[in-house]
Protein backbone atom coordinates (compact mmCIF):
# COMPACT_ATOMS: atom_id res chain seq x y z
CA UNK A 1 0.00 0.00 0.00
CA UNK A 2 1.32 3.49 -0.75
CA UNK A 3 2.43 5.93 1.96
CA UNK A 4 -0.17 8.73 1.63
CA UNK A 5 -3.12 6.34 1.86
CA UNK A 6 -1.69 4.68 4.96
CA UNK A 7 -1.52 8.04 6.68
CA UNK A 8 -4.88 9.52 5.71
CA UNK A 9 -6.48 8.58 9.04
CA UNK A 10 -4.03 10.95 10.73
CA UNK A 11 -6.28 13.80 9.54
CA UNK A 12 -8.46 12.91 12.54
CA UNK A 13 -5.83 14.81 14.55
CA UNK A 14 -7.11 18.07 12.99
CA UNK A 15 -10.43 17.73 14.83
CA UNK A 16 -8.98 18.76 18.24
CA UNK A 17 -7.64 21.98 16.69
CA UNK A 18 -11.03 22.82 15.22
CA UNK A 19 -12.68 22.15 18.59
CA UNK A 20 -10.29 23.86 20.99
CA UNK A 21 -9.15 26.76 18.77
CA UNK A 22 -11.29 27.51 15.72
CA UNK A 23 -14.66 27.14 17.48
CA UNK A 24 -13.82 29.32 20.50
CA UNK A 25 -14.79 32.76 19.07
CA UNK A 26 -18.24 31.40 18.20
CA UNK A 27 -18.73 29.59 21.52
CA UNK A 28 -17.71 32.73 23.37
CA UNK A 29 -20.69 34.60 21.88
CA UNK A 30 -23.08 32.35 23.82
CA UNK A 31 -23.77 33.51 27.35
CA UNK A 32 -24.98 30.39 29.09
CA UNK A 33 -24.01 28.38 32.14
CA UNK A 34 -25.52 24.89 32.09
CA UNK A 35 -25.63 23.54 35.69
CA UNK A 36 -24.02 26.80 36.78
CA UNK A 37 -20.74 26.10 34.97
CA UNK A 38 -19.85 28.55 32.14
CA UNK A 39 -20.32 27.10 28.63
CA UNK A 40 -16.76 28.02 27.68
CA UNK A 41 -15.46 25.92 30.58
CA UNK A 42 -17.66 22.98 29.53
CA UNK A 43 -16.37 23.40 25.98
CA UNK A 44 -12.73 23.49 27.02
CA UNK A 45 -13.13 20.40 29.21
CA UNK A 46 -14.95 18.52 26.46
CA UNK A 47 -11.97 19.55 24.30
CA UNK A 48 -9.69 17.48 26.54
CA UNK A 49 -11.83 14.42 25.81
CA UNK A 50 -11.94 15.27 22.10
CA UNK A 51 -8.13 15.34 22.08
CA UNK A 52 -7.81 12.02 23.89
CA UNK A 53 -10.52 10.44 21.75
CA UNK A 54 -8.92 11.60 18.49
CA UNK A 55 -5.50 10.35 19.50
CA UNK A 56 -7.02 7.03 20.64
CA UNK A 57 -8.75 6.51 17.27
CA UNK A 58 -5.54 7.20 15.33
CA UNK A 59 -3.52 5.01 17.72
CA UNK A 60 -5.87 2.08 17.20
CA UNK A 61 -5.74 2.39 13.41
CA UNK A 62 -1.94 2.76 13.49
CA UNK A 63 -1.70 -0.33 15.67
CA UNK A 64 -3.98 -2.38 13.44
CA UNK A 65 -1.94 -1.34 10.39
CA UNK A 66 1.31 -2.22 12.10
CA UNK A 67 -0.04 -5.69 12.98
CA UNK A 68 -1.34 -6.24 9.45
CA UNK A 69 1.95 -5.11 7.91
CA UNK A 70 3.98 -7.54 10.00
Amino acid at each position, binding site marked *: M*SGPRRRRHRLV*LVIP*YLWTVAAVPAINLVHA*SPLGVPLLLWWAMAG*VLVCTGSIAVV*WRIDNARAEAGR
Partner: protein
Amino acid sequence: MTVAIGVALFIVAATTGGTTYLARRGRRVTMSEWAVGGRSFGSILLWFLSAGEIYTTFAFLGAAGWAYAYGAPGFYILANAPLGYVLGYWLLPKIWRAGHDHNVMSQADYVRARFGRRWLAGLVALIGVLALIPYIQVQLTGLATILTVMFHGSVGKPVAVLIGAALLLVFTFTAGLRSSAFASMVKDVFVVGVVIAVFATVGTLAGLGGIGGIFRHLAAAHPSYTNLPGMQPDAHYTPWWFCSSILMTNIGYWMWPHSFQANLSASSDRAIRRNAVLQPIYTLSYFFIFVIGFAALLAVPHLTDSNTALVSVIYRYFPQWFVGIAAGTGILVALVPSTVMLLTLGTTVARNIYRPAADLPDRHRLLVGRLTTVVGVAVAAYLTLGSSSTIVSLLLVAYSGIAQIGPGIILSLAWRRTTSYGVAAGSVVGIALVGVPQVSTWWASISSIEVGLFAVAVNTVVLVLVSLCTRAPQEHHIAVGIPRDDLTRPVPATT
Protein backbone atom coordinates in the same frame (compact mmCIF):
# COMPACT_ATOMS: atom_id res chain seq x y z
CA MET B 1 1.91 27.57 62.63
CA THR B 2 4.79 25.33 63.79
CA VAL B 3 2.61 22.29 63.09
CA ALA B 4 2.16 23.39 59.45
CA ILE B 5 5.86 24.11 58.98
CA GLY B 6 6.85 20.82 60.61
CA VAL B 7 4.51 18.79 58.39
CA ALA B 8 5.66 20.62 55.27
CA LEU B 9 9.33 20.09 56.11
CA PHE B 10 8.76 16.40 56.82
CA ILE B 11 7.01 15.83 53.48
CA VAL B 12 9.69 17.59 51.47
CA ALA B 13 12.61 16.02 53.32
CA ALA B 14 11.16 12.49 53.32
CA THR B 15 10.28 12.60 49.63
CA THR B 16 13.49 14.09 48.35
CA GLY B 17 15.69 12.08 50.71
CA GLY B 18 13.88 8.80 50.13
CA THR B 19 13.73 9.03 46.37
CA THR B 20 17.33 10.14 46.12
CA TYR B 21 18.43 7.19 48.24
CA LEU B 22 16.36 4.74 46.16
CA ALA B 23 17.70 6.09 42.91
CA ARG B 24 21.33 6.18 43.92
CA ARG B 25 21.57 2.77 45.57
CA GLY B 26 24.29 0.94 43.70
CA ARG B 27 24.52 3.42 40.86
CA ARG B 28 27.35 5.59 39.66
CA VAL B 29 26.37 8.93 38.18
CA THR B 30 27.68 9.20 34.62
CA MET B 31 26.91 11.90 32.08
CA SER B 32 24.48 9.61 30.28
CA GLU B 33 22.81 8.46 33.52
CA TRP B 34 22.50 12.04 34.73
CA ALA B 35 20.91 13.25 31.52
CA VAL B 36 18.60 10.61 30.04
CA GLY B 37 18.28 7.94 32.73
CA GLY B 38 20.11 5.36 30.63
CA ARG B 39 17.39 5.39 27.91
CA SER B 40 15.44 2.62 29.64
CA PHE B 41 12.28 4.13 31.09
CA GLY B 42 9.14 2.08 30.53
CA SER B 43 5.83 3.71 29.80
CA ILE B 44 4.57 3.85 33.41
CA LEU B 45 7.66 5.62 34.63
CA LEU B 46 7.54 7.88 31.58
CA TRP B 47 3.92 8.74 32.37
CA PHE B 48 4.84 9.97 35.83
CA LEU B 49 7.90 11.74 34.54
CA SER B 50 5.84 13.65 31.98
CA ALA B 51 3.10 14.41 34.50
CA GLY B 52 5.72 15.88 36.80
CA GLU B 53 6.77 18.21 34.04
CA ILE B 54 3.29 19.32 33.03
CA TYR B 55 1.80 19.78 36.48
CA THR B 56 4.18 22.40 37.67
CA THR B 57 3.72 25.48 39.79
CA PHE B 58 2.06 26.90 36.72
CA ALA B 59 -0.85 24.50 37.16
CA PHE B 60 -1.00 24.48 40.95
CA LEU B 61 -0.68 28.21 41.67
CA GLY B 62 -0.77 29.92 38.26
CA ALA B 63 -4.08 28.50 37.03
CA ALA B 64 -5.81 29.24 40.35
CA GLY B 65 -4.35 32.76 40.25
CA TRP B 66 -5.72 33.45 36.79
CA ALA B 67 -9.14 32.05 37.65
CA TYR B 68 -9.00 34.44 40.61
CA ALA B 69 -7.87 37.50 38.63
CA TYR B 70 -9.44 37.11 35.17
CA GLY B 71 -11.93 34.22 34.98
CA ALA B 72 -12.51 32.85 31.46
CA PRO B 73 -9.10 33.77 29.91
CA GLY B 74 -7.51 31.16 32.20
CA PHE B 75 -9.51 28.40 30.47
CA TYR B 76 -6.99 28.44 27.62
CA ILE B 77 -4.76 26.40 29.93
CA LEU B 78 -7.06 23.38 29.50
CA ALA B 79 -6.14 23.08 25.82
CA ASN B 80 -2.41 23.40 26.38
CA ALA B 81 -1.38 19.84 27.31
CA PRO B 82 -4.00 17.84 25.33
CA LEU B 83 -3.27 19.73 22.13
CA GLY B 84 0.42 19.32 22.89
CA TYR B 85 -0.07 15.55 22.79
CA VAL B 86 -2.06 15.77 19.55
CA LEU B 87 0.95 17.45 17.95
CA GLY B 88 3.26 15.13 19.90
CA TYR B 89 1.62 12.01 18.49
CA TRP B 90 3.02 12.99 15.10
CA LEU B 91 6.16 14.79 16.22
CA LEU B 92 7.60 12.83 19.16
CA PRO B 93 8.18 9.45 17.50
CA LYS B 94 10.19 11.22 14.78
CA ILE B 95 12.34 12.93 17.39
CA TRP B 96 12.71 9.73 19.41
CA ARG B 97 13.83 7.86 16.32
CA ALA B 98 16.45 10.46 15.46
CA GLY B 99 17.73 10.17 19.03
CA HIS B 100 17.73 6.40 18.97
CA ASP B 101 19.43 6.00 15.59
CA HIS B 102 22.01 8.74 15.91
CA ASN B 103 22.98 8.76 19.60
CA VAL B 104 21.32 12.12 20.19
CA MET B 105 21.15 13.12 23.87
CA SER B 106 19.75 16.64 23.64
CA GLN B 107 17.94 19.04 21.38
CA ALA B 108 21.17 20.70 20.28
CA ASP B 109 22.65 17.26 19.49
CA TYR B 110 19.71 16.72 17.18
CA VAL B 111 20.18 20.05 15.41
CA ARG B 112 23.84 19.30 14.95
CA ALA B 113 23.15 15.85 13.52
CA ARG B 114 20.36 17.13 11.27
CA PHE B 115 22.21 20.11 9.80
CA GLY B 116 25.86 19.23 10.44
CA ARG B 117 26.50 22.68 11.85
CA ARG B 118 27.88 23.11 15.35
CA TRP B 119 27.14 26.83 15.45
CA LEU B 120 23.46 26.23 14.70
CA ALA B 121 23.29 23.70 17.54
CA GLY B 122 24.83 26.36 19.78
CA LEU B 123 22.30 28.96 18.65
CA VAL B 124 19.30 26.70 19.27
CA ALA B 125 20.78 25.68 22.64
CA LEU B 126 21.19 29.33 23.56
CA ILE B 127 17.56 30.15 22.75
CA GLY B 128 16.49 27.14 24.84
CA VAL B 129 18.60 28.26 27.79
CA LEU B 130 17.30 31.84 27.56
CA ALA B 131 13.68 30.67 27.50
CA LEU B 132 14.29 28.29 30.43
CA ILE B 133 15.21 31.20 32.70
CA PRO B 134 11.66 32.65 32.94
CA TYR B 135 10.41 29.06 33.31
CA ILE B 136 12.66 28.54 36.35
CA GLN B 137 11.47 31.96 37.51
CA VAL B 138 7.93 30.52 37.52
CA GLN B 139 9.04 27.79 39.94
CA LEU B 140 10.93 30.20 42.17
CA THR B 141 7.96 32.58 42.26
CA GLY B 142 5.82 29.64 43.37
CA LEU B 143 8.26 28.56 46.07
CA ALA B 144 8.54 32.12 47.35
CA THR B 145 4.75 32.53 47.33
CA ILE B 146 4.23 29.40 49.42
CA LEU B 147 6.98 30.32 51.89
CA THR B 148 5.76 33.90 52.42
CA VAL B 149 2.16 32.82 53.00
CA MET B 150 3.25 29.96 55.29
CA PHE B 151 5.41 32.18 57.47
CA HIS B 152 2.74 34.83 57.31
CA GLY B 153 4.71 38.00 56.90
CA SER B 154 7.64 37.04 59.14
CA VAL B 155 9.65 36.03 56.06
CA GLY B 156 10.09 38.67 53.37
CA LYS B 157 10.22 38.00 49.64
CA PRO B 158 14.05 38.21 49.30
CA VAL B 159 14.58 35.59 52.02
CA ALA B 160 11.84 33.38 50.58
CA VAL B 161 13.39 33.53 47.09
CA LEU B 162 16.83 32.71 48.51
CA ILE B 163 15.50 29.70 50.44
CA GLY B 164 13.67 28.57 47.30
CA ALA B 165 16.83 28.86 45.21
CA ALA B 166 18.83 26.90 47.80
CA LEU B 167 16.19 24.14 47.87
CA LEU B 168 16.31 23.91 44.06
CA LEU B 169 20.08 23.53 43.95
CA VAL B 170 20.29 20.97 46.76
CA PHE B 171 17.60 18.77 45.25
CA THR B 172 19.08 19.01 41.76
CA PHE B 173 22.59 18.09 42.84
CA THR B 174 21.74 15.12 45.01
CA ALA B 175 20.74 13.04 41.97
CA GLY B 176 19.59 13.19 38.37
CA LEU B 177 16.58 12.43 36.25
CA ARG B 178 15.80 9.01 37.74
CA SER B 179 15.32 10.33 41.24
CA SER B 180 13.11 13.03 39.83
CA ALA B 181 10.88 10.35 38.30
CA PHE B 182 10.46 8.70 41.72
CA ALA B 183 9.81 12.05 43.42
CA SER B 184 7.31 12.81 40.68
CA MET B 185 5.24 9.77 41.66
CA VAL B 186 5.09 10.84 45.30
CA LYS B 187 4.31 14.40 44.28
CA ASP B 188 1.48 13.36 41.98
CA VAL B 189 -0.22 11.37 44.73
CA PHE B 190 0.01 14.37 47.05
CA VAL B 191 -1.04 17.00 44.54
CA VAL B 192 -4.10 15.06 43.40
CA GLY B 193 -5.04 14.36 47.03
CA VAL B 194 -4.68 17.99 48.15
CA VAL B 195 -6.49 19.45 45.15
CA ILE B 196 -9.47 17.10 45.46
CA ALA B 197 -9.72 17.57 49.24
CA VAL B 198 -9.70 21.37 48.91
CA PHE B 199 -12.05 21.33 45.93
CA ALA B 200 -14.58 19.17 47.78
CA THR B 201 -14.60 21.11 51.04
CA VAL B 202 -13.64 24.74 50.34
CA GLY B 203 -17.17 25.82 49.40
CA THR B 204 -18.58 24.55 52.70
CA LEU B 205 -15.66 25.71 54.87
CA ALA B 206 -15.80 29.23 53.42
CA GLY B 207 -19.58 29.36 53.95
CA LEU B 208 -20.39 29.52 50.23
CA GLY B 209 -22.57 26.41 50.25
CA GLY B 210 -20.72 23.72 48.28
CA ILE B 211 -19.43 23.69 44.72
CA GLY B 212 -22.75 24.72 43.16
CA GLY B 213 -22.82 27.59 45.63
CA ILE B 214 -19.40 28.82 44.49
CA PHE B 215 -20.63 29.10 40.88
CA ARG B 216 -23.92 30.75 41.95
CA HIS B 217 -22.21 33.36 44.11
CA LEU B 218 -19.59 34.04 41.45
CA ALA B 219 -22.18 34.58 38.70
CA ALA B 220 -23.93 37.07 40.97
CA ALA B 221 -20.82 38.93 42.11
CA HIS B 222 -18.73 38.84 38.90
CA PRO B 223 -21.07 38.13 35.95
CA SER B 224 -18.30 38.91 33.41
CA TYR B 225 -16.12 35.95 34.47
CA THR B 226 -17.93 33.40 32.27
CA ASN B 227 -16.94 34.73 28.82
CA LEU B 228 -13.89 36.33 27.20
CA PRO B 229 -12.38 38.88 27.78
CA GLY B 230 -13.14 38.07 31.42
CA MET B 231 -13.20 40.20 34.56
CA GLN B 232 -10.59 42.73 33.40
CA PRO B 233 -11.56 43.75 29.84
CA ASP B 234 -8.72 46.30 29.72
CA ALA B 235 -6.21 43.46 29.71
CA HIS B 236 -7.41 42.57 26.15
CA TYR B 237 -7.75 38.84 26.72
CA THR B 238 -10.07 38.56 23.72
CA PRO B 239 -11.03 35.39 21.82
CA TRP B 240 -8.19 36.23 19.40
CA TRP B 241 -5.75 36.32 22.27
CA PHE B 242 -7.19 33.04 23.56
CA CYS B 243 -6.78 31.20 20.24
CA SER B 244 -3.35 32.65 19.50
CA SER B 245 -2.06 31.74 22.97
CA ILE B 246 -3.19 28.15 22.50
CA LEU B 247 -1.45 27.95 19.12
CA MET B 248 1.74 29.61 20.37
CA THR B 249 2.01 27.31 23.39
CA ASN B 250 1.26 24.36 21.11
CA ILE B 251 4.17 25.18 18.81
CA GLY B 252 6.46 25.69 21.78
CA TYR B 253 5.18 22.69 23.74
CA TRP B 254 7.78 20.12 22.66
CA MET B 255 10.50 22.64 21.98
CA TRP B 256 11.55 22.87 25.63
CA PRO B 257 14.98 21.31 25.90
CA HIS B 258 13.75 19.28 28.89
CA SER B 259 10.61 17.99 27.13
CA PHE B 260 12.74 17.08 24.14
CA GLN B 261 15.17 15.25 26.40
CA ALA B 262 12.47 13.46 28.44
CA ASN B 263 11.10 12.16 25.16
CA LEU B 264 14.53 10.76 24.30
CA SER B 265 14.52 8.74 27.54
CA ALA B 266 11.46 6.73 26.44
CA SER B 267 12.09 3.02 25.89
CA SER B 268 10.30 2.91 22.52
CA ASP B 269 8.24 5.02 20.12
CA ARG B 270 5.29 2.78 21.00
CA ALA B 271 5.59 3.86 24.64
CA ILE B 272 5.51 7.49 23.50
CA ARG B 273 2.37 7.03 21.40
CA ARG B 274 0.53 5.10 24.11
CA ASN B 275 1.49 7.81 26.57
CA ALA B 276 0.02 10.42 24.22
CA VAL B 277 -3.36 8.69 24.43
CA LEU B 278 -3.48 8.60 28.24
CA GLN B 279 -1.68 11.76 29.25
CA PRO B 280 -4.26 14.45 28.29
CA ILE B 281 -6.86 13.02 30.72
CA TYR B 282 -4.84 14.34 33.65
CA THR B 283 -5.63 17.86 32.42
CA LEU B 284 -9.26 17.55 33.51
CA SER B 285 -8.07 18.09 37.08
CA TYR B 286 -7.62 21.76 36.16
CA PHE B 287 -11.36 22.03 36.77
CA PHE B 288 -10.70 21.51 40.50
CA ILE B 289 -8.01 24.18 40.45
CA PHE B 290 -10.26 26.70 38.69
CA VAL B 291 -13.00 26.10 41.26
CA ILE B 292 -10.51 26.66 44.09
CA GLY B 293 -9.44 29.91 42.41
CA PHE B 294 -13.08 31.00 42.13
CA ALA B 295 -13.69 30.13 45.79
CA ALA B 296 -10.66 32.20 46.74
CA LEU B 297 -12.05 35.18 44.85
CA LEU B 298 -15.23 35.00 46.93
CA ALA B 299 -13.62 34.08 50.27
CA VAL B 300 -10.40 36.13 50.26
CA PRO B 301 -10.97 39.00 47.80
CA HIS B 302 -8.54 41.92 47.36
CA LEU B 303 -5.31 39.92 47.53
CA THR B 304 -2.42 42.09 46.33
CA ASP B 305 -0.89 39.13 44.47
CA SER B 306 -3.17 36.72 42.59
CA ASN B 307 -0.40 34.06 42.66
CA THR B 308 -1.23 33.56 46.33
CA ALA B 309 -4.94 32.80 45.73
CA LEU B 310 -4.79 29.03 46.26
CA VAL B 311 -2.40 29.13 49.21
CA SER B 312 -4.26 32.00 50.89
CA VAL B 313 -7.64 30.29 50.81
CA ILE B 314 -6.13 27.08 52.24
CA TYR B 315 -4.28 29.03 54.91
CA ARG B 316 -7.47 30.84 55.92
CA TYR B 317 -9.93 27.96 56.13
CA PHE B 318 -8.07 24.71 56.74
CA PRO B 319 -6.49 23.11 59.84
CA GLN B 320 -2.78 23.56 60.49
CA TRP B 321 -1.73 20.02 59.59
CA PHE B 322 -3.49 20.32 56.25
CA VAL B 323 -1.86 23.67 55.53
CA GLY B 324 1.44 21.85 56.12
CA ILE B 325 0.59 19.07 53.68
CA ALA B 326 -0.51 21.59 51.05
CA ALA B 327 2.63 23.69 51.49
CA GLY B 328 4.88 20.62 51.32
CA THR B 329 3.07 19.53 48.17
CA GLY B 330 3.45 22.99 46.65
CA ILE B 331 7.18 22.90 47.35
CA LEU B 332 7.51 19.45 45.74
CA VAL B 333 5.45 20.66 42.79
CA ALA B 334 8.01 23.39 42.18
CA LEU B 335 11.10 21.30 42.99
CA VAL B 336 10.46 18.18 40.93
CA PRO B 337 9.98 19.75 37.48
CA SER B 338 12.70 22.31 38.14
CA THR B 339 15.22 19.54 38.61
CA VAL B 340 14.54 18.31 35.12
CA MET B 341 14.78 21.83 33.71
CA LEU B 342 18.00 22.60 35.55
CA LEU B 343 19.62 19.31 34.55
CA THR B 344 18.76 20.06 30.95
CA LEU B 345 20.11 23.56 31.24
CA GLY B 346 23.35 22.16 32.65
CA THR B 347 23.82 19.43 30.04
CA THR B 348 22.91 21.78 27.19
CA VAL B 349 25.53 24.33 28.16
CA ALA B 350 28.14 21.68 29.04
CA ARG B 351 27.78 19.81 25.76
CA ASN B 352 26.67 22.33 23.17
CA ILE B 353 27.68 25.82 24.22
CA TYR B 354 30.86 25.36 26.30
CA ARG B 355 33.70 24.48 23.88
CA PRO B 356 31.54 22.01 21.95
CA ALA B 357 34.39 20.92 19.64
CA ALA B 358 36.94 20.17 22.38
CA ASP B 359 37.59 16.59 23.52
CA LEU B 360 37.10 17.05 27.27
CA PRO B 361 36.85 14.36 29.97
CA ASP B 362 33.34 13.50 31.16
CA ARG B 363 34.06 14.88 34.63
CA HIS B 364 35.08 18.23 33.22
CA ARG B 365 31.73 18.62 31.40
CA LEU B 366 29.80 17.41 34.46
CA LEU B 367 31.44 20.18 36.47
CA VAL B 368 30.61 22.79 33.82
CA GLY B 369 27.00 21.55 33.83
CA ARG B 370 26.76 21.95 37.59
CA LEU B 371 28.30 25.41 37.59
CA THR B 372 25.87 26.49 34.87
CA THR B 373 22.99 25.21 36.96
CA VAL B 374 24.09 27.43 39.85
CA VAL B 375 24.37 30.45 37.55
CA GLY B 376 20.94 29.71 36.00
CA VAL B 377 19.26 29.59 39.41
CA ALA B 378 21.05 32.77 40.49
CA VAL B 379 19.86 34.67 37.41
CA ALA B 380 16.28 33.39 37.83
CA ALA B 381 16.36 34.37 41.53
CA TYR B 382 17.59 37.86 40.66
CA LEU B 383 14.79 38.30 38.10
CA THR B 384 12.18 36.94 40.54
CA LEU B 385 13.14 39.56 43.13
CA GLY B 386 12.38 42.41 40.74
CA SER B 387 9.20 40.99 39.23
CA SER B 388 5.53 41.19 40.17
CA SER B 389 4.17 39.30 37.16
CA THR B 390 1.54 36.60 37.48
CA ILE B 391 2.85 33.07 37.05
CA VAL B 392 0.77 32.60 33.89
CA SER B 393 2.18 35.76 32.28
CA LEU B 394 5.72 34.65 33.10
CA LEU B 395 5.12 31.33 31.41
CA LEU B 396 3.63 33.03 28.33
CA VAL B 397 6.82 35.10 28.08
CA ALA B 398 8.88 31.90 28.30
CA TYR B 399 6.70 30.30 25.61
CA SER B 400 6.98 33.24 23.25
CA GLY B 401 10.75 32.66 23.38
CA ILE B 402 10.85 28.87 23.08
CA ALA B 403 8.23 28.83 20.30
CA GLN B 404 10.78 30.56 18.06
CA ILE B 405 12.74 27.33 17.59
CA GLY B 406 9.48 25.53 16.74
CA PRO B 407 9.38 26.32 13.00
CA GLY B 408 13.00 25.18 12.59
CA ILE B 409 12.65 21.89 14.48
CA ILE B 410 9.24 21.01 13.05
CA LEU B 411 10.18 21.79 9.44
CA SER B 412 13.48 19.91 9.83
CA LEU B 413 11.38 16.77 10.42
CA ALA B 414 9.05 17.36 7.48
CA TRP B 415 10.68 19.49 4.79
CA ARG B 416 13.89 18.24 3.17
CA ARG B 417 14.77 21.67 1.83
CA THR B 418 15.16 23.22 5.34
CA THR B 419 18.65 24.72 5.63
CA SER B 420 20.83 25.79 8.56
CA TYR B 421 20.80 29.42 7.41
CA GLY B 422 17.02 29.34 7.10
CA VAL B 423 16.60 28.05 10.66
CA ALA B 424 19.14 30.54 12.01
CA ALA B 425 17.61 33.55 10.21
CA GLY B 426 14.05 32.59 11.17
CA SER B 427 14.73 31.98 14.85
CA VAL B 428 16.90 35.09 15.27
CA VAL B 429 14.19 37.27 13.66
CA GLY B 430 11.55 35.60 15.86
CA ILE B 431 13.54 36.13 19.07
CA ALA B 432 14.22 39.75 18.09
CA LEU B 433 10.48 40.38 17.58
CA VAL B 434 9.52 39.02 21.01
CA GLY B 435 12.62 40.40 22.74
CA VAL B 436 12.38 44.06 21.70
CA PRO B 437 9.79 45.74 23.97
CA GLN B 438 8.92 48.38 21.33
CA VAL B 439 7.75 45.65 18.94
CA SER B 440 5.44 44.16 21.59
CA THR B 441 4.01 47.60 22.38
CA TRP B 442 3.44 48.40 18.71
CA TRP B 443 1.87 44.98 18.09
CA ALA B 444 -0.44 45.30 21.12
CA SER B 445 -1.72 48.61 19.74
CA ILE B 446 -2.96 46.96 16.54
CA SER B 447 -3.98 43.46 17.65
CA SER B 448 -4.75 41.39 20.75
CA ILE B 449 -3.11 38.35 19.12
CA GLU B 450 -0.13 37.11 21.17
CA VAL B 451 3.04 38.77 19.92
CA GLY B 452 4.78 35.37 20.18
CA LEU B 453 2.49 33.89 17.53
CA PHE B 454 3.02 36.88 15.24
CA ALA B 455 6.78 36.33 15.67
CA VAL B 456 6.39 32.61 14.85
CA ALA B 457 4.59 33.53 11.61
CA VAL B 458 7.33 35.97 10.53
CA ASN B 459 9.95 33.42 11.65
CA THR B 460 8.42 30.74 9.41
CA VAL B 461 8.25 33.02 6.34
CA VAL B 462 11.90 34.06 6.79
CA LEU B 463 12.92 30.43 7.33
CA VAL B 464 11.25 29.27 4.12
CA LEU B 465 12.57 32.15 1.99
CA VAL B 466 16.16 31.85 3.22
CA SER B 467 16.05 28.06 2.91
CA LEU B 468 14.99 28.33 -0.72
CA CYS B 469 17.96 30.63 -1.42
CA THR B 470 20.62 28.54 0.35
CA ARG B 471 22.00 25.05 -0.19
CA ALA B 472 20.22 22.11 1.46
CA PRO B 473 22.21 19.96 3.93
CA GLN B 474 23.86 16.77 2.72
CA GLU B 475 21.77 13.66 2.24
CA HIS B 476 23.01 11.86 5.35
CA HIS B 477 22.17 14.90 7.50
CA ILE B 478 18.66 15.16 6.07
CA ALA B 479 18.16 11.46 6.81
CA VAL B 480 18.53 12.17 10.56
CA GLY B 481 15.24 14.08 10.58
CA ILE B 482 13.58 12.47 7.58
CA PRO B 483 14.74 8.83 7.33
CA ARG B 484 14.76 7.24 3.89
CA ASP B 485 11.98 4.72 4.59
CA ASP B 486 9.87 7.50 6.04
CA LEU B 487 9.44 9.12 2.61
CA THR B 488 5.87 8.90 1.43
CA ARG B 489 6.79 7.77 -2.06
CA PRO B 490 4.63 5.09 -3.68
CA VAL B 491 6.30 1.70 -3.68
CA PRO B 492 7.00 0.54 -7.27
CA ALA B 493 4.52 -2.07 -8.45
CA THR B 494 7.21 -4.38 -9.82
CA THR B 495 9.42 -6.03 -7.25
